[in-house]
C-alpha cells in the first residue's frame, strides 16, 4: 500500500530538487565575481537601530536622479539637437508622441525635485554633523555633485530651443564671460563660436547627456561606496554609543563625560 507523504514533507522533497537548479547560476556568478557576496553584504549590513526618515533623503535624491536618467534616455530617442528641428521635436514629444508629455514633464519637473532634494539632503547631513571624521571625503564628493546638478539644469534649459531657453542662455553665457581670466574663454567654449547657434546646441546637448551625467554617476558611485564602507551615521541624539558624542576632553576625566541621556534632543 502506497503511503503518500504528508504535504510538508512533500514540499521539502520538491525544494531539495529545485534549489540546486536555482543556486547553480548564483553560485557560478559568485565564484567568478563575488557579486552575490557583495549584494548580500550591502543588503544585510548593519545600520544604527535609530536611523529615521531624515536618513531617506539621500536615497530620495538618488531616485530623482534615476528618474532623470530614464526619462532623459527616452527623450533622447525623439529629440533632434539642431536649431531647425529641436523646437519642433519638443513640440512633437509634448503633443503627439504617446505619453511624451508625461516623460518630458517628469524630466522637466524631476530636475526641480532633484535640486530641492540635494539641498535638503545636504542640510540634513550638515545639521546631523555627519560630515565629521571619518566622513569628510564623502561630504566633499556630495558638495561636488551640487554644482554638477546645477550645470545639468543650465545646459538642459537651452535644449527646448524656445525663447526662454535661448535668451536665458544668452544671459547665462554672458555672465560666464564676465569671469576673471578664464571667463571669456569659457563663454567662447560654451557658445562654440561667436554666437549662439547650432554648435552651442550640440555642445550643450553633449554636456547635458554625456559629460555631466557621466561625472554625476561616477561621483554617486563613490558617494555610495563611502556610505557603505563607513556606515550610516546615527542621529546626533542617539542613545547608543554610536551616536553619543563626548566633549573634546581628556578621556580619563570622568567628571567631564556627560551622561548620555542629557545629550538627547526631543524629537
Amino acid at each position: 500500500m502506497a503511503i503518500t507523504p504528508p504535504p510538508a514533507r512533500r514540499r521539502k522533497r520538491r525544494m531539495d530538487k529545485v534549489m540546486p537548479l536555482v543556486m547553480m547560476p548564483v553560485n557560478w556568478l559568485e565564484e567568478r565575481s563575488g557579486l552575490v557576496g557583495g549584494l548580500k553584504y550591502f543588503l544585510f549590513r548593519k545600520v544604527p537601530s535609530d536611523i529615521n526618515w531624515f536618513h531617506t533623503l539621500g536615497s530620495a535624491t538618488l531616485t530623482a536622479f534615476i528618474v532623470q536618467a530614464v526619462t532623459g534616455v527616452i527623450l533622447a530617442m525623439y529629440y533632434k539637437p539642431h536649431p531647425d528641428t529641436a523646437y519642433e521635436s519638443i513640440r512633437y514629444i509634448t503633443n503627439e508622441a504617446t505619453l511624451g508629455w508625461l516623460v518630458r514633464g517628469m524630466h522637466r519637473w524631476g530636475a526641480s525635485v532633484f535640486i530641492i532634494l540635494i539641498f535638503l539632503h545636504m542640510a540634513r547631513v550638515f545639521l546631523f554633523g555627519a560630515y565629521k571624521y571619518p566622513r569628510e571625503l564623502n561630504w566633499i564628493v556630495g558638495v561636488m555633485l551640487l554644482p554638477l546638478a546645477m550645470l545639468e539644469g543650465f545646459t538642459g534649459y537651452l535644449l527646448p530651443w524656445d525663447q526662454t531657453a535661448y535668451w536665458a542662455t544668452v544671459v547665462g553665457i554672458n555672465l560666464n564671460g564676465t569671469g576673471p581670466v578664464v571667463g571669456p574663454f569659457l563663454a567662447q567654449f560654451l557658445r562654440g563660436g561667436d554666437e549662439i547657434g547650432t554648435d552651442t546646441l550640440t555642445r550643450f546637448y553633449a554636456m547635458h547627456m554625456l559629460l555631466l551625467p557621466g561625472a554625476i554617476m561616477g561621483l554617486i558611485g563613490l558617494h555610495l561606496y563611502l556610505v557603505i564602507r563607513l556606515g550610516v551615521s546615527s542621529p546626533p541624539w542617539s542613545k547608543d554609543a554610536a551616536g553619543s558624542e563626548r566633549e573634546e576632553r581628556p578621556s580619563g576625566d570622568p567628571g567631564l563625560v556627560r551622561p548620555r541621556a542629557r545629550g538627547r534632543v526631543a524629537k
Partner: protein
Amino acid sequence: MSRRLQEGRAQHQRYKEDVEKRGKSFYPYAMFHDTVMSLVVVAVIVALACIWYLTAEVNEDGSSGSGALGVLYEDKADPGTTSFIPRPDWYFYFLFYLLRIFKWPDSVILGTVGIPTIALILLLALPFIDLRRERRLVRRPVAVVAVILTALSMGVLTYKGAVAEEGSEATGLVPEWIERFSIPPGDASEGAEIFSVSGCLNCHQYAGEGVPNLGAPELTEEGNKNRGVQWQIDHLECPSCVTPGSPMPPYEDLGQDNLRKLAAFLEASKGEAAGGEAAG
C-alpha cells in the same frame, strides 16, 4: 597623533562595535523607509508633470497657453525679435538676483563669480573648518545660525528673483525720452520706438530703465562718444566684429532701415546736459 584624531578613531570604533551589536540590518528595515520615500518622490514628480500638462492648453496654432505651472513651451527661439525677457529656471533665481545687488562694473564680479565661489569653497572646506567632535545641535549654535541664515537668504533671493520686474517693453517711456533728451524728430525718434521694443533694455539701461549688472553699457549718453551713425550700424549688425569679444548678439535681422533709425537714436542720445531746457 593629535588627540582629536585619536578621539575620532576611538569613537568610530565604538560606533562600529555598537552598530554590529545593536544595529539592525539594512534589508528590510532601512530599505522599507527608503522604498516608501522613493515612491513618494516618483509620485510627486508624476503629479507635477500631470498638473503642468493638464492645466495648460494647446492653442489652435500649436502654441501653448499657460497652466498652473507655466507654459509647455514658449515660441520658437528667435535671435531677431529680442523683446523677450530672459529668465533662468527658478533654482537659479537666487544667483540671478544676487547680480542686481552689485553695481556694474566694479563689483559685479562679486555676484557672478565671487560669492558663489566663496560659498563653494566654504562648503568643500567645512569638514576641515569644523573639527569638533560635537554633533548635537544645542551645542553647535554657529552651525544652526549658519543654516538658518543661508536658508533665509536663499529664500529671500529666490523670492526677489521671482517677482523682479524686468525692463522689456518700454514704449510708454519713448515720449518722455524724446522730450527729456531732446531727441530730434524723424529717424532718431522712430529709432527710440524701435529701441524700446527690441529688447535692448533686457541687457542695457537707458535713463534708469532696464536691467543693470548684465555687463552691457548704459546708453543714455552713448551719443557723447561721437562714434558716428555708420559705426553704430556696423556694431548693431555684428557687435563682435566691431568690438572683439562683445557678447552682444547681432541685430542685422532688424533690417537696414530699422538699424539706421536705431543708430540715429543712439547718436542723438547725449544725456540731459545736452538737452538744454529739458534738464529741469
